[in-house]
């Protein structure tokens, strides 16, 4: 089973990487860009056929390593 785990900054947390990318894009003349957010995605390949069980394991991964709950939220998409 393959899952995609998206790690995003929570609302209200400053995103300097996104802001700087926005600035650079504007500089290159992309005038219609309004906002840029950085999102990190891990594609995880698992030996697990049961989707429910896999989701539980993935949530545990997020809680324990992939996300810092103070600034980040996560979203799991099963493929």
């Amino acid at each position, binding site marked *: 089973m393959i899952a995609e785990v998206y790690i995003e900054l929570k609302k209200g947390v400053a995103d300097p990487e996104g802001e700087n990318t926005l600035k650079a894009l*504007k500089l290159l003349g992309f005038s219609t860009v309004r906002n840029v957010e950085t999102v990190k995605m891990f594609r995880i390949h698992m030996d697990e056929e049961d989707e429910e069980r896999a989701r539980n394991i993935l949530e545990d991964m997020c809680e324990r390593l992939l996300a810092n709950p103070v600034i980040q939220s996560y979203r799991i998409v099963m493929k």
Partner: protein
Amino acid sequence: MSVYLKKDLPFEVYEIDILNSDDAQLSRISEDMGLALNTDEMKRIRDYFRAKGRNPTDVELQSLAQAWSEHCCYKSSKYFLKKYLFGINAPQNILVIEEDAGVVEFDENHAYVVALESHNHPSAIEPYGGSATGIGGILRDVVCMGAQPIALVDPLFFGPLDIPFESLPKGVKHPLYLMNGVVAGIRDYGNRVGIPTVAGMIFFDEGYTGNCLVNVGCVGIAKKENIIRSRAGNAGDLFVLTGGRTGRDGIHGVTFASTELDETSEESSRGAVQLGNPIIKEPLIHACLEANEKKLLTGMKDLGGGGLSCVVGEMALSAGYGAEVYLDRVPLKEENLKPWEIWVSESQERMMLTVRPENLEEVLYIFDKWDVPANVIGRVTEDRILKVYYRDHLVYEMDIEFVTKGPEYCRPFKVEKREGEIHGRVPEPVDYLSVMRSIISHPNIASKEFAIRQYDHEVRGNTIIKPLQGIPGNESHGDSAVIKPLADSWKGLAITADVNPYYTKIDPYWGTTAAFDEMCRNLVSVNSIPHSFADCLNFGNPEKPLRLGDFQESVRALGWMARTLGIPCVSGNVSFYNETPYSYVPPTPTLMGIGIVEDVRKAVTMDIKKRGSVLILIGETKEEFGGSVYSKIRGIEMGRVPRSDPVRLKNSMEGLLSLFREFSILSCHDPSEGGIFACLAEMCIGGGIGCDVEVPDEMRKDVFLFSESTTRWIVEVREEDSRDILEFLNKRNVPTRIIGRTGGRELRFNTGTENLSISVKELDELWRSGIVSLMGG
């Protein structure tokens, strides 16, 4: 019928039918296989195999292409380097020129190690990965001598940042994109491995638009007893390949670096750009140094250009042995690599060791402890033949001497005199202040803080004089950085990187003397004795006689300066083919100078220290505007390029160094780009203090302010010492004059008729915004 005949083996190896090929076919084979060998070289290979009575395999042919590339065997440059530059005997030399890095005496028990290299072609295609792997490679060059890296240096050259996108030739990336990518690559790699980046330069010129230059240097320190050679130890020793796995990245890197770039380069050469992994490198350094300190290794060499094919051949040849290699024992990143690909891949973070069989277990334990893969892939043999096996089948058998001793050429060259003879015909500017403002914000003079602060220049905690000097928050560019390499000694190393391509573009000979002069001045400015240097010679296509003429002139000048001053060239690198169909780079002989600081506690910085001190100009000012920033601002070509005379330079350096010993010198800086004006402006900015300067009557104002004559310094001294200092230097035939005093909030020049003054605050703002304003904030 095809010339490529698949051999009857359970894997993919071809026999190339060159025995029955005519010249045209040979040249087509070279092109089809991406060998970058010319017809004469192909014929030489044909002759060799004719004598053997068989055709070569693709593994053999690819291997020869690597070994005979310009990058690996210096076939176009060696003649000139030997004639002019090599063989300067100096008592401090320990191992110079012959290895990947130069080894020079530091003190009784220690040596420092110097390496400087280009990573131009990969960086022009993929700036981030290209520059990062450049750092990786130069670190390995130092580590493979048994030394701990202690400092990195990065001279960079780009096209103008404000060049419009529309005017870029097809396939050429914008200088802003290249610069940001290169700086980020150096930052992410250098910072991650924990070696401080302490010196460098960023230079802008139209000539670099099509070919940016990325030079990287490294300095290391080692106990003399731990210095190890890049050669195989003894027959019977094992070749142990350590570090990263081998993949398809970096195939044909050196043949790619030995041809001109064109618009198709991006697509066709992506594979030639390697990807770096600093998090393997850092433990690899530890493991190699630990195994070496425990005396478990008999030889060590990094895998760079040409990958395994070059490293095995060169280690065996220089020891007078042969080798057997089993390609299937090389750990791979991906399956299905063809044998020739494994043999020539330039995957990063790999190091080759030779180890006595009885020490193998201990070596493998150390690498396992650091989680760094290490595998026996071959052994050293008595004969001088290199044999390569893949799954028990012999796929390569050649004499090492034939492979590794590549061709050497004295190609036709032509020396062109481009320096004009325009003297004193430039009208004085109407508005001096506006010229000053333009000079201090000129991108080649303006602050490089945006890059310097992205590099960790203090990791290892031994950076005594940092690249930015002065009041915190107001720091200005220093002349050299100073590192204290040993915990229990006050002795230090000063490091600088210099070249001014504006000069070398007009006159490669005199321009190169000026670069050497500047290197020495920068080392002396911080109170260090110039001790050795490395060069990275970046030029265009050597098959064009004018480019090779420029190269010849530059090398000749280096030899003259180095020999007269007794400062040895200890290592270096030649990068040719920095050329596109539209343009070629200005002759760029980048120099990295190393000075010995007897006591780091006596190092001197360039920022003005206090009010009421006296400013003394050391050296002569002549009308030398050729290639000056002043000439660029005025938009006028002005003749004579600043030039050096090594005898005069030697005398002045000695005078200044003894001055440092006898008197307390508050600050010292050398006029270079932008002349005395820019020099004083930088001193004022760093110290947050102004000064009052008298412009001599007998000289045109613009000559005094903006000429870039060499062998000059400005020192700040105590009022009460100033007379004695003048006398001290005059006695030693060093020209001096008091030019002014420090104080106030303005940099002020008094001439007979007017006062030209700009506030230090304004200078500071102009200097700091010069480049940043072109980067979009």
